[in-house]
């Protein structure tokens, strides 16, 4: 498995400047022949609460779970959890993991037919059971799929405390079916578990969504990869954010590694490429001074897989220091885009149309400027965009709940800056 790390930045700073920004692109070739460097465990969590009876959701969920099971590679450990008021293991026997084979998958598919919708939603308990099952296989690439259709029924704060205790132990991709679930709840899970969140508005779309998640999960060939950021004395990391394929703030996930370095979990990797925005506060240098502001490494355990340098060079030449780096500008815009969309949705819900119009207007402008067509299209379902360039929008009187939730969940999706014309 080979990785590359490359920093994009304008290293030239005006005298007195102390903020260093860089976009670090991490690319992995994936393991040779797609072979994993470690074992893998997959857990499918299906909401089986009473509300799943509506709109034929439970039937669609059964079909989706079967599709997912059939996509599990031979040799991968797996389990299925039925989510009701408590967590119940649907397959295999409670407390155990099955080893994927044509026989075990067929058995799992048969067990899925027993899945009945009744009871409540207890996402914290479901995730806790998943974490217990994963703990049998330390070192595995651990991935879970979570499907729900409603708001969590556990006491307030319980889900958060569970996430605190299991965060980083496995990657969890969440999907909400219908429109009765809470985007903010699933986003919390995505952020804590380094996963994705998305809406599946119609139950008919579930099988395709599960298939896609499984294909991606099975493509992961290495597990717990981390970004290690070294900074010199008197310098601090202001933030580390994943900015592509979606925005994810990793700053709070820092685990100290010696006096001057910290590790940020970046999850499991297959053959793929992601971008990170690293922002460092340094002490200013004199004209002509060059400082290593950060040494960014991709690490797995003690192995350094790739490394790149973020530099700061102080110059009196304003032609150099005022140069705008395309990557940094692009992703700064994309991160702001996610923020203003979420702020716009909040304001609209609170009945503050004026703020909502301003936020969505700015969002339309940013989506347009950064070429994020998908987000622009999603925005157009919530507001009428009169002029994207100036950010002139009008709130739509009637907005489908599914459209607004899609905009909310996908607001963090970014597009990559065109590498050819930087």
């Amino acid at each position: 498995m080979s990785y590359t790390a490359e920093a994009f930045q304008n290293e030239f700073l005006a005298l007195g400047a102390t903020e260093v920004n860089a976009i670090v692109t991490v690319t992995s070739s994936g393991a040779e022949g797609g072979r994993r460097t470690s074992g893998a465990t997959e857990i499918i969590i299906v909401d089986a609460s009473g509300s799943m009876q509506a709109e034929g959701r439970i039937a669609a969920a059964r079909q989706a779970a079967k599709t997912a099971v059939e996509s599990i590679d031979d040799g991968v450990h797996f389990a299925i959890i039925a989510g009701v008021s408590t967590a119940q293991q649907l397959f295999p026997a409670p407390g155990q993991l099955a080893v994927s084979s044509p026989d075990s998958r067929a058995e799992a598919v048969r067990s899925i037919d027993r899945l009945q919708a009744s009871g409540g939603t207890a996402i914290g308990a479901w995730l806790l059971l998943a974490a217990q099952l994963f703990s049998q296989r330390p070192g595995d690439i651990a991935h879970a799929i979570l499907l729900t259709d409603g708001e969590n029924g556990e006491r307030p704060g319980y889900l958060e405390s569970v996430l605190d205790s299991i965060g980083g132990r496995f990657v969890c991709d969440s999907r909400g079916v219908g429109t009765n679930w809470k985007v903010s709840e699933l986003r919390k899970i995505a952020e804590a578990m380094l996963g994705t969140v998305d809406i599946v508005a119609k139950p008919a779309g579930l099988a395709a969504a599960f298939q896609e998640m499984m294909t991606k999960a099975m493509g992961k060939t290495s597990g717990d990869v981390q970004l290690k950021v070294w900074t010199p004395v008197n310098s601090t990391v202001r933030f580390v954010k994943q900015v592509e394929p979606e925005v994810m703030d990793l700053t709070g996930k820092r685990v100290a590694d010696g006096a001057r370095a910290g590790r940020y979990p970046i999850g499991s990797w297959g053959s793929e490429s992601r971008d990170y925005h690293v922002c460092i506060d340094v002490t200013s240098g004199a004209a002509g001074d060059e400082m290593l502001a950060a040494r960014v490494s991709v690490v797995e355990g003690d192995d350094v897989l790739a490394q790149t340098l973020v530099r700061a060079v102080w110059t009196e030449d304003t032609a150099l220091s005022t140069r705008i780096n395309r990557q940094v500008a692009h992703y700064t815009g994309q991160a702001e885009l996610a923020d203003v969309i979420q702020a716009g949705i909040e304001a609209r819900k609170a009945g503050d149309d004026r703020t909502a119009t301003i936020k969505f207007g700015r969002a339309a402008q940013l989506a347009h400027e950064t070429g994020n067509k998908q987000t622009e299209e999603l925005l157009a379902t919530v507001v009428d965009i009169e002029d994207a360039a100036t950010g002139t929008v009008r709130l739509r009187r009637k907005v489908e709940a599914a459209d607004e939730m899609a905009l909310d969940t996908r607001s963090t999706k970014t597009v990559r800056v065109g590498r050819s014309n930087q």
Partner: protein
Amino acid sequence: MTTTDCASCADERAAGVAFCEACGNKLTEDEPGPADTADTRSAPAPTAPASSADPKSCPHCGTADSVGADGYCENCGMLAARPRDHIEVDLAEVAAAVTDRGQRHHRNEDAMWLVGHPGYVDAVVSDGVSSSFDPDLASQVAADIAGAALGGDGSRKLTFLSPEQLAEMLAERLSGAIVQAGAAVAELAAGGDPRRAVSNPACTIVAATVRGQFVDVGWVGDSRAYWLPAEGPAEQLTEDDSWATHAIALGADPETAMRDPKAHAITAWLGADAGPVRPRTAGFTVTAPGHLVLCSDGLWNYLTDPARFAGTVRDALDGKSLLDAARQLAKFANAAGGADNITVVLIPVAPAHPEHTEYKE
């Protein structure tokens, strides 16, 4: 030497106008007083790695044994030194050259080439355009490619040439070497860091051949060659491809032109955006001993007056080895502010022995 866009003239990059120097101000006023008005920052010591301390201790924060393999201090992050910060070439009596980072630039974007033996010297000085991307690579490639091309292909049959034939051949070779260097520098835009495609690596070049008493130079940009006779002012052999030179040629008052902020903007360079490279050449036959001096604007910016230039170089040469003289000139420019990278090559040239009227190449 630096180029940038200017708000007052929309098309200058296309028109080839570019600014000079870190400050972008009237450099003619920056001329130093006597060398004892030295900048408070110390000039590099005359010998190569300046510090006598442990090379692995940090010159910035003083932490012992803290400089890592990549040259940065593991404590304060400061770059300890780059190999190109100060380079010397010593050909004893034949020639000497020094290139130095100066005081205000973070790296040395000048490069040089110097090879030779008595009566046969090839030299190149190239200065990377600071505002381009990877200018240090541009100048290095230009100096290496042009320098190698000056030596001929080695397989050439030795032929006896008349002075006229030799002059023509050397002019062609200098032009060819610079064009070849230009092509190599232009190619850099397509490889490596993609930012090179936007702000392609660019540089100036001045190349010289000394064959016995015959001195030939070729250039693009504002790196210069001077002939320094035993007495009197230095004679500039090159004519800068710069805004000021252009304006003066069109009739502008030289002093006013040199004080213009655009004075040092270069109008020709090597690089992907340079268009066709048309090197200019000049040559002459030495009739009395003197020195051929090649230098980047990091030196001549402080010595725009030919008489002062001559005086300063003669002082440096006085009783010293060529290398010490070159070091002394780098030190002079550093003491004067070291606003740019400094490169200087010194090549003594003497008239031919009366019996040698033909030259073998």
